[in-house]
């Protein structure tokens, strides 16, 4: 006999440790199974897009750090590239290479946090994330060396970088790059074949190719579903066309594939940094641009980069004054959340946490 039960509404979040910030899921349960889920956000809304309109182009750079605070360098780069495209500011060769090095280091750091907290959500409590945070700490040390801050770097400027890297940076970076593959092997040994992890993630939260494309997902979410789409290859910006690297893809589009894609991407980032260090030219790192005010010609521009979470785009409208008329940010975390319902419905509450962890969102970017 089948007993008829009332659906139960369960709020997961906003102050739940595995919602990665202040995110709330209103899940409707039938017994243990989720039959409907509604994401609710806005708890961290700071109005960054509006703040951009009240600040000069230059003054908005430190605020881009606060979008996706796990990958601040990537945000800096995306915004600076948008303004450079708008105002046609040239960027010296050395600056481009250092930007690529920084963006790739940031990708490793962001994926370390993503993978670590995903494993944390799966129940591998604290051990893997502490190993990964230890490696991230080394990257953060390098960023502190070049920019002076550990989280909000504010390092890139229109037409290059704020300062050149110090002399002690490149030897330290080489040491890190030599160490990193060994640590990645260690993470694989730790959890790649762990039966409990396989049982919890394989086949859980399958996102089909079609749904992923229809939801305009980008980044590791899309690649985990088997679509080899990476802006670094599809629309090469900066100097990415000069490097050799692969696009790791998953096969089934489940949580495990997304985790693997992130780990493999870290290896590819190490490859890119190694090539960039070999090709690094000498020269200036900043073209002649005004330090304080720039007045780009009236017009609009959209510029995108492959941030660790997906396509991060800045859409700027200029009216020829010192501040943007409109600034819209296409945050990958926000758009990747749109497939949450498709993935979660039909799974149990414990799986919902795993699936949500595999999306890898940062609330600073979702709410802006």
């Amino acid at each position, binding site marked *: 006999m089948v007993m008829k039960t009332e659906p139960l509404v369960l709020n997961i979040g906003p102050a739940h440790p595995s919602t990665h910030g202040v995110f709330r899921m209103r899940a409707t349960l039938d017994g243990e199974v989720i039959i409907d889920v509604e994401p609710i956000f806005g708890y961290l809304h700071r109005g960054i897009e509006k703040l951009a309109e009240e600040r000069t182009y230059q003054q908005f750079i430190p605020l881009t750090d606060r979008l996706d605070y796990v990958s601040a360098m990537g945000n800096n780069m995306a915004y600076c590239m948008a303004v450079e495209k708008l105002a046609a500011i040239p960027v010296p060769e050395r600056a481009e290479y250092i930007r690529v090095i920084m963006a790739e280091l940031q990708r490793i750091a962001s994926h370390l946090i993503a993978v670590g907290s995903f494993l944390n959500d799966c129940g591998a409590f604290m051990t893997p994330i502490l190993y990964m945070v230890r490696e991230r700490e080394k990257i953060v040390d390098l960023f502190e060396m070049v920019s002076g801050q550990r989280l909000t770097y504010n390092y890139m400027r229109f037409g290059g970088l704020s300062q050149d890297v110090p002399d*002690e940076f490149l030897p*330290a970076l080489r040491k890190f790059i030599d160490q990193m593959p060994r640590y990645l092997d260690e993470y694989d040994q730790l959890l790649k074949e762990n039966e409990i992890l396989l049982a919890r993630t394989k086949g859980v939260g399958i996102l089909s190719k079609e749904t992923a494309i229809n939801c305009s997902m980008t980044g590791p979410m899309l690649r985990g579903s088997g679509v080899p789409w990476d802006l670094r290859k599809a629309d090469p910006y900066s100097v990415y066309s000069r490097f050799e690297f692969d696009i790791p893809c998953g096969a089934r589009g489940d949580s495990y594939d997304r985790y693997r894609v992130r780990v493999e991407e870290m290896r590819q980032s190490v490859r890119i940094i190694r090539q960039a260090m070999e090709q690094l030219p000498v020269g200036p790192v900043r073209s002649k641009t005004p330090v304080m005010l720039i007045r780009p010609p009236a017009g609009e521009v959209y510029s995108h980069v492959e941030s660790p979470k997906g396509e991060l785009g800045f859409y700027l409208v200029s009216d020829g004054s010192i501040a943007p008329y409109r600034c819209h940010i296409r945050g990958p975390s926000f758009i990747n959340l749109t497939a949450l319902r498709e993935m979660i419905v039909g799974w149990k509450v414990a799986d919902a946490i795993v699936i949500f962890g595999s999306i890898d969102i940062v609330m600073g970017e979702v709410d802006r």
Partner: protein
Amino acid sequence: MKLDYYGLGIAKGLMVTLKHLFRRPVTVQYPEQTLNTSRRIRGNELVWNEEKCTGCSTCAKACHIGAISIVTAPNPEGDKYPVEKYEIDTGYCIMCGMCVEVCPFEALYMGAGYEKAQYRRGDLVQSKEVMKYTSEKYVSGYFYPEFAAQLPLQTLLLEKITEEE
């Protein structure tokens, strides 16, 4: 889910954790031990050079929070305004370093110190007496390579974990 074998993957993972038992800890007991920060640290103990400052307010214009307030007196003779009030509210300051970057007279520096916690919000406002530049003060090398050379080299975690080689 069906698996070919059970337990081997867990045993492999436990080998890694076992290996970590014999690694040296890298934890630092903070108030007693401190690490050297970056030479370009953007610390909140900002330093202001009264001799060099002309009161042009470029720093206040560059600050997007409006944390710098500056009042100058008129000066009909020279090209330098006497600064009557110079305050930075570090409660609002986000340590972006833009004021230091834009200063055309090299009169404002980020501080190398970072221990400026206060019990009251009002105490976070740094007046010009607090920030005044003296030769004993530690000044950060952010945008000033000559000061950076005086600071000790940064301690890197990278160099602390070496026993595996």
